[in-house]
């Protein structure tokens, strides 16, 4: 039965409709593979009982002819999404024991469409990290390894569990979130497809908040079509999130296979950062060549404030995080460490509950928002954000979509990067997209000299995810798909 786990969502959907197998058989195949793949540490909680129950309900709906768009499709859910009665702790010790009494809008949408939950996926603590090394539940292992090497590699982060699980075929697809690159960077590191939609496309209700003006959820999937199917179900207009935008959700799948003849593709010259590795540069040039061959027009553009996006992000994101994470005080939920008085209890609980990276970011955030520094740091960063968005607004008069590398390197080894600023540089190509609220997709486009997957990123106009799927599908067709050889 294990060949059932090799099916994409689109293929599994077909098989289920044709009654070639049942939803329960499909779910059982995944449960068996998850048990065999625990070495990857992608799942922190497995919910086989719930999965079987949901699969049986899917079979009943398939029999009745009332199947939803994701009927019987087994998914992994990032631990950042509230799932009623099931462990939801943002992979932090501070949320010890937390089981929400409500469901996030996004997971609610997925269950409405018939999807099956396999369990909760590992991630960097509170989504703060680029290598999945900050999780309270330990590192996630990338299914990919370098040629002729047994050394473990990181899957990227923060959605490292989502990316690893999708790449290892231990879920059909996964939910993920992206504040500075947390969907696109791990997707690129694992040869999977990840899309961060426009800010406001997916509801943030029930998603543990990191930096509210940047956070946006999206899927990680095996191919572009599956990502389109997932986003269609995840996206919605939600009265419970005031930043959810009142626009109907289009049929993203319909964009796949459309010709890109005449499409104007921008190549931002500022992304040719000093010291870009030759293999990343070659990958980027190859991507542009493929699109040109398919009829697109390649246009050099300028996004002059690109280099300031990352440092400005490391003011805005920690500032918002320090405010959002103020709620973890040991009173209403999570870890409580007693103290001499209530303030002592707060301080003890937060010191024991937050890991070093989260503490560092709360400290930075608290400092840049403190009296006397607010204008010099926070207000200046928000002004630079205006300039970054203005760069893109100007570019959209010349181009329809922008092509860049997704990451500056392929996956690296755990412990290889210990300096915080060096780690932050992983998001150098992705973070501008969050700062400007735009949609971005990472799609596998080649392999490194060591045989590791490399991704390209496409950036779109606000709410133009369709052009991203249309263009990414062309790259995918030219580049082919990537599957890690199974060693586990």
């Amino acid at each position, binding site marked *: 039965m294990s060949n059932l786990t090799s099916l994409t969502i689109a293929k599994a959907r077909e098989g289920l409709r044709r009654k070639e197998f049942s939803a329960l058989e499909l779910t059982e195949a995944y449960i068996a593979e998850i048990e065999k793949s625990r070495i990857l540490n992608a799942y922190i909680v497995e919910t086989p009982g719930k999965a079987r129950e949901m699969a049986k309900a899917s079979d009943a709906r398939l029999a009745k002819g009332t199947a939803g768009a994701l009927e019987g499709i087994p998914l992994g859910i990032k631990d950042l999404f509230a799932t009623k009665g099931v462990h939801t702790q943002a992979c932090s010790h501070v949320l010890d024991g937390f089981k929400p009494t409500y469901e996030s809008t996004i997971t609610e949408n997925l269950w409405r469409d018939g999807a099956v939950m396999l369990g909760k996926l590992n991630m960097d603590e509170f989504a703060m990290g680029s290598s999945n090394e900050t999780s309270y539940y330990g590192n996630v292992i990338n299914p990919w390894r370098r040629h002729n090497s047994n050394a473990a590699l990181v899957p990227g982060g923060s959605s490292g569990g989502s990316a690893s699980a999708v790449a290892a075929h231990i879920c059909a697809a996964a939910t993920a979130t992206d504040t500075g690159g947390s969907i696109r960077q791990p997707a690129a590191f694992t040869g999977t497809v990840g899309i961060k939609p426009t800010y406001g496309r997916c509801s943030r209700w029930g998603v543990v908040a990191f930096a509210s003006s940047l956070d946006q959820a999206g899927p990680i999937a095996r191919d572009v079509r599956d990502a389109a199917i997932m986003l269609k179900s995840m996206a919605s207009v939600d009265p419970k999130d005031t930043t959810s935008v009142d626009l109907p959700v289009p049929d993203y799948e319909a964009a796949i296979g459309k010709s890109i003849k005449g499409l104007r593709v921008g190549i931002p010259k500022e992304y040719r950062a000093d010291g870009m590795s030759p293999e990343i540069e070659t990958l980027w040039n190859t991507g542009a060549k493929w699109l040109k061959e398919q009829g697109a027009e390649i246009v050099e553009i300028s996004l002059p404030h690109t280099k*300031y996006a990352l440092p400005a992000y490391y003011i805005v994101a920690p500032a918002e995080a320090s405010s959002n994470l103020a709620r973890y005080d040991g009173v209403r*939920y999570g870890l409580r460490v007693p103290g001499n008085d209530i303030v002592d209890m707060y301080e003890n609980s937060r010191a024991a509950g937050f890991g070093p990276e989260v503490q560092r970011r709360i400290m930075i955030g608290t400092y840049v928002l403190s009296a006397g520094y607010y204008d010099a740091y926070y207000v200046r960063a928000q002004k630079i954000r205006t*300039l970054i968005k203005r760069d893109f607004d100007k570019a959209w008069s010349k181009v329809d979509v922008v092509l860049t590398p997704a990451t500056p390197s392929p996956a690296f080894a755990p412990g290889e990067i210990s300096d915080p600023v060096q780690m932050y540089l992983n998001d150098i190509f992705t973070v501008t997209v969050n700062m400007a609220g735009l949609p971005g997709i990472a799609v596998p486009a080649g392999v490194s000299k060591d045989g590791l997957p490399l991704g390209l990123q496409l950036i779109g106009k*606000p709410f133009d995810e369709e052009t991203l799927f249309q263009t990414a599908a062309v790259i995918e067709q030219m580049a082919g798909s990537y599957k890690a050889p199974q060693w586990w």
Partner: protein
Amino acid sequence: MSVDQATVRRVAKLARIKLKEENVARLEGELNSILHWIEQLNEVDVTGVEPMTSVVSVKMKMRKDLVTDGSYPGEVVANAPAKEDDYFLVPKVIE
């Protein structure tokens, strides 16, 4: 701008995180390396630029001022580390 050890202690106090004395020097170094890196933002001329308040140009949605949720105190306190009846329990704050 850079922080000294007294500032590190003050910021930790503001953030309600108890610092171990042996970590103060390490944090001082880490915060300063991040703050120095951020300093490149001072190169940018931001004269007359409005700070961003929203990435998408939409009007703030208003909702009717109605009670649409609630009346389940048991669920609200369900995850509390300490509770009595439907109240959160905390150490004594008023003498």
